[in-house]
């Protein structure tokens, strides 16, 4: 049984203090009522009030949500297809190039991805706006989805699919009835990852977007380049709250599902 030693407890405390102190300070100061942003001037929720009246932020939030919803959904479909092709597709012409194109965007600097997409959109005379941001986000997130889904596909027992085929299932219904339920957790995780990456992205959206569409990160970025803004502190606090609740819920749900699965398996063995 391992116990906390003095050294380990100290390094954990310092490490987590470093990780959480900046965000905590941001949250605390979003309730600062004083005129000076850096000096505490009493508790107030006035910045939240100003935020909900700020049309520009609300518009940007709406654009961001639309982009994230569309791009993560398309990316999940394409990424799952790509993972299936990579793991189960066997040999075909250009397989190496295909797997290269799946892995390269994961390590590509954002500035280069953004620049190259911008040059493409301008080159073919495509008007930049919400649609081009969706295309750009779909492209890099499908690669993340594909990595997550293929790790699940690699680990599961192929004979289950083969049994379904032997018993007269068509390949399509074997995928729907056997493969998809098994890889579903990875597909959902991939969708969540794609959604978060899209919400988070500043650099690529900045290149891929035109004057007609501004996402929330672009709005935040232009507001904070010059200094600390109490309205952005309030906005950040709301976003951090949503993410924290979401992540904790997701981990509780998956924990419960794991416990249930374990119980079911034990019951099946006992019978």
């Amino acid at each position, binding site marked *: *049984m*391992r116990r906390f030693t003095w*050294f*380990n*407890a100290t*390094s*954990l405390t*310092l*490490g987590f203090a*470093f*990780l959480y102190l*900046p965000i905590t*300070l*941001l949250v605390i100061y979003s309730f600062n009522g004083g005129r*000076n*942003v*850096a*000096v505490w001037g009493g508790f107030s929720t006035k910045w939240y009030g100003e935020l909900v009246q700020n049309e520009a932020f609300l518009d940007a939030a709406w654009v961001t949500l639309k982009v994230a919803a569309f791009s993560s959904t398309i990316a999940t479909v*394409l*990424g799952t*297809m790509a993972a*299936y*092709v990579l793991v189960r*597709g066997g040999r*075909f012409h250009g397989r190496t190039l295909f797997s290269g*194109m799946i892995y*390269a*965007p994961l*390590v590509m*600097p*954002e*500035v*280069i991805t953004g*620049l*190259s*997409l911008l*040059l*493409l959109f301008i*080159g073919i005379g495509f008007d930049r706006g919400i649609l081009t941001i969706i295309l*750009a986000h*779909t*492209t890099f997130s*499908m690669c993340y989805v594909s990595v997550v889904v293929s790790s699940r596909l690699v680990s599961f027992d192929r004979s289950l699919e083969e049994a379904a085929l032997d018993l007269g299932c068509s390949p399509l219904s074997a995928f729907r009835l056997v493969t998809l339920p098994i890889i579903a957790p990875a597909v959902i995780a991939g969708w969540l990852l794609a959604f978060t990456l899209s*919400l988070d992205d*500043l*650099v690529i959206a900045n290149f891929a977007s035109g004057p007609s569409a501004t996402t929330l*990160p672009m709005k*935040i*970025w232009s507001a*904070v*380049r010059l*200094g*600390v803004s109490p309205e*952005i*502190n309030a906005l*950040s606090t709301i*976003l*951090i709250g949503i*993410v924290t609740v979401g*992540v904790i819920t997701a981990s509780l749900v998956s924990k419960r599902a794991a416990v249930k699965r374990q119980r079911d398996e034990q019951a099946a063995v006992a019978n």
Partner: protein
Amino acid sequence: MWGPYLMRRFALISIPYLWLLALFLVPFVIVFKISLSDIALSIPPYTPQFDPSAGWPGVTAFLSDLDLENFVFLTTDDLYWRAYLSSLQIAVTSTVLTLLVGYPLAYGMANAPDRWRPTLIMLVILPFWTSFLIRVYSWKGILAGSGYLNQFLLGMGVISDPLTILNTNTAVYIGIVYTYLPFMVLPIYAALERLDGSLLEAAEDLGCSRKSAFWLVTVPLSKPGIIAGSFLVFIPALGEFVIPDLLGGSKTLMIGKVLFEEFDKNRDWPVASAVAVILLLILIIPIILFQRNEQKQREAEQ
């Protein structure tokens, strides 16, 4: 003719394939092509433009107009030289700093009681799901001249004049260490967690002190995690744009920032493209080394 099976297989492969060709590979070829072009006062602002209607002579005329002029320009103007070198220096320094901060944290996690570990892992991953931009921005309020850190230190009487940290390279180091810390901690934790405790007991039984057992057993066995974590920090840090833009100053030179400004302010697309091509060439080496490390680890596990 093709049966329905082959048709389906063809569709399954070609849809994601064509998507990536059109939106990943073709854009790259365009960047490469424009890096060989010259700046021009036209829309789009470079020359030559490819004109398929001119037929084969048009193609050869187009090809003969491409040259390496922009790459030569990059070697003559020392701004680019210094930007590449300073990006490398900033990326290396912050990778080492992240390792120094991340290793004790990963070590503490791996040696924590079993029932604590899932919570500790979640606490390391949680910031990763919150906006990168917000995490970088949160340091602005701390490090500013009248920020929380200076207020605290002045209040405690540790310093008599406020420290200048924001808009210097120090702030960029802090920003990189802070945002990329989970990438360093998780692989090291994974390596340390697998470590067999009886090896350390054996070393101590054989007369090793705890300290030298750490350096002779623990550190070498966690090397794959250290290497993986270092690459996961170094590779994105090299092309970083947001952190030097928000926390760095006018003297902070990083290639991601230079590229963005070349494009945004100077509107010199050919030079911006050439900068991008060189950055990619520099990145290929660490990416291949990283892949090799992963491969070796996978083989070792089997």
